[in-house]
């Protein structure tokens, strides 16, 4: 099948050769339908490129951990507050300190929720609804998440004891790398669609929002590592060959494929649960800082989307509606208003798409369109995409200098690692405006708001 890359001329020129090789490999996988896709934020990944999307026939197609990523259901969550920048600024330093303390970040951290193996498995299968039942969040939260925060396919029978051991203590932790928790502002000049912004609850001048980027932590990574090994053995049995070991796969209908699908869905649910517990912590930190309650503060969920996942979805191919296994790796679902899984509240708008930018440049809220359904299996971009290695970024700026520079520009940064901070500098990423313009101009998802950071907890 063909490979299709979505990019402007300038973005295409900055894409590394690995993207072209990897998306070509994806297009050759068994059972792929129509075309392999790479989003404009695409860059070199493992197996699939980051930004890769591919749909497979359920009977003749495969499932591949390399098409989902190690950090299963790494995703974005957006909360809106009833506060404005002028109310938050005087207490910003205190707020960021409380958030930094409430949400553990960095290497080898434990969350405050203490679970034994059996209870962690329950949380992993139960996802965000499990958290709400435990007192972390409200039922209204669940109505504003992809899949209401729980994939029904979750099945613990394919989980190794090691994956449970690795994940057990990490619920409610941010992780490291490019994961973050940001306090952001909606400035009037950054609202592209007033009516849609208002319908999404952004109707105050300089309204404050909170954005979260994290995933399934060590649990998801162990599931990915386990099945990378299992599939390499299984491939011999099924006569499958791939040009890259990171593209290890199994027929979707095979016992191994089904076990991975169930385990992957459990890891995805653990990521929904992780973001839900962190949301609880964010709300507590705001209540303590501003000495008031949630009724006054807001902090309602706008939406929560996965950008490393595989799901069975219905799409129209050559005029025929078919069930397909859609892999999205560094790509976000972008359903239009006609789709059943779009929450009731957004049926007149389309599904919210949350796009994380670098911590210096800002992030976007977009809306999905029915056009993305036709062109891209209902998929769009997920972030801005790196253009510089971590080693190179660290050589260019010191973490403490970047922290001071950002402070001068009014952005308070709290981090567990100054060298990790330097690696996430804005210059290491593509220009997010240019990347987002590609999907906006193609009609795949349309711009509503750009958020500017004023506070950042960096993992």
């Amino acid at each position: 099948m063909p490979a299709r890359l979505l990019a402007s001329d300038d973005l295409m020129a900055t894409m590394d050769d690995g993207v072209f090789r990897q998306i070509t490999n994806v297009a050759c996988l068994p059972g792929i339908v129509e075309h392999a896709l790479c989003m404009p934020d695409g860059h070199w990944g493992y197996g699939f490129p980051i930004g890769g999307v591919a749909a497979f026939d359920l009977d003749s197609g495969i499932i591949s951990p390399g098409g989902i990523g190690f950090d299963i259901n790494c995703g974005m969550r957006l909360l809106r507050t009833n506060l404005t920048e002028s109310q938050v600024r005087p207490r910003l330093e205190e707020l960021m300190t409380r958030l930094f303390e409430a949400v553990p970040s960095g290497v080898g951290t434990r969350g405050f929720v203490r679970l034994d193996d059996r209870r962690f498995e329950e949380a992993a299968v139960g996802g965000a609804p499990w958290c709400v039942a435990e007192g972390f969040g409200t039922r209204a939260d669940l109505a504003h998440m992809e899949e209401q925060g729980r994939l029904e396919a979750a099945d613990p029978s394919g989980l190794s004891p090691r994956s449970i051991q690795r994940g057990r203590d990490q619920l409610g932790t941010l992780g490291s790398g490019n994961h973050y928790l940001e306090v952001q502002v909606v400035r009037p000049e950054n609202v592209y669609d007033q009516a849609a912004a208002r319908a999404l609850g952004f109707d105050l001048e300089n309204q404050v929002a909170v954005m979260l980027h994290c995933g399934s932590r060590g649990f998801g990574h162990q599931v990915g590592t386990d099945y990378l090994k299992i599939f390499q053995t299984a491939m011999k049995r099924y006569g499958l060959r791939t040009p890259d070991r990171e593209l290890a796969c199994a027929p979707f209908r095979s016992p191994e494929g089904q076990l991975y699908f169930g385990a992957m869905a459990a890891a995805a649910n653990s990521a929904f649960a992780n973001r839900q517990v962190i949301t609880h912590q964010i709300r507590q930190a705001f209540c303590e800082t501003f000495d008031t309650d949630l009724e006054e503060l807001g902090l309602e969920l706008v939406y929560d989307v996965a950008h490393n996942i595989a799901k069975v979805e219905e799409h129209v191919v050559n005029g025929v509606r078919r069930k397909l296994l859609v892999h999205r790796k560094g790509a976000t679902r972008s359903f239009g208003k006609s789709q059943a899984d779009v929450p009731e509240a957004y049926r007149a708008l389309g599904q919210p798409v949350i796009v994380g930018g670098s911590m210096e440049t800002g992030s976007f809220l977009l809306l999905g369109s029915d056009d993305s359904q036709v062109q891209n299996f209902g998929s769009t971009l997920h972030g801005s995409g790196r253009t510089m290695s971590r080693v190179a970024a660290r050589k260019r700026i010191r973490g403490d200098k970047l922290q001071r520079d950002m402070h001068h520009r009014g952005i308070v940064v709290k981090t567990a690692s100054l060298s990790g901070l330097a690696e996430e500098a804005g210059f290491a990423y593509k220009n997010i405006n240019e990347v987002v313009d590609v999907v906006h101009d193609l009609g795949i998802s349309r711009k509503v708001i750009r958020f500017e950071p004023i506070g950042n907890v960096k993992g």
Partner: protein
Amino acid sequence: MAGTYRFIEDGAQADVAFTAEADSLTSLLEICGEATFAAMTDTKLVKPVERHTVTVQADALEDLLFDWLSELIFLKDTEEFVASRFRVRCPDKPSFHLQALVEGEAIDRRRHQMNVDVKAATYHEMDIHQENGRWFAKVVLDV
């Protein structure tokens, strides 16, 4: 450890890659273990006061290296442990059977400057081979 490692810029824009070389396979595995922890923290500040044993069985060199590093990452997450000293034995017949003593300590954020978290070993561009009596490896770590 009779070997060296170097973090490199190519091969993993979003992640961490290193090359390593040593005078024997066991030294190479030790130095790759050290590089994995060095990606996360300054290993010079890690005292070898706590010991763990690691065993790995593998048929191929790449699997041996992948499984060895995966075990170390597992230890880091489950024990909140960082290592600075590695003693590897690895009889290679009929298959590779690695036995290692790994020394380090529990993560202490006041003393250990933590960098980025290594979450998985990968086969991406992985290389491990012997040439003119020396051993070489290239590894990309997912962070």
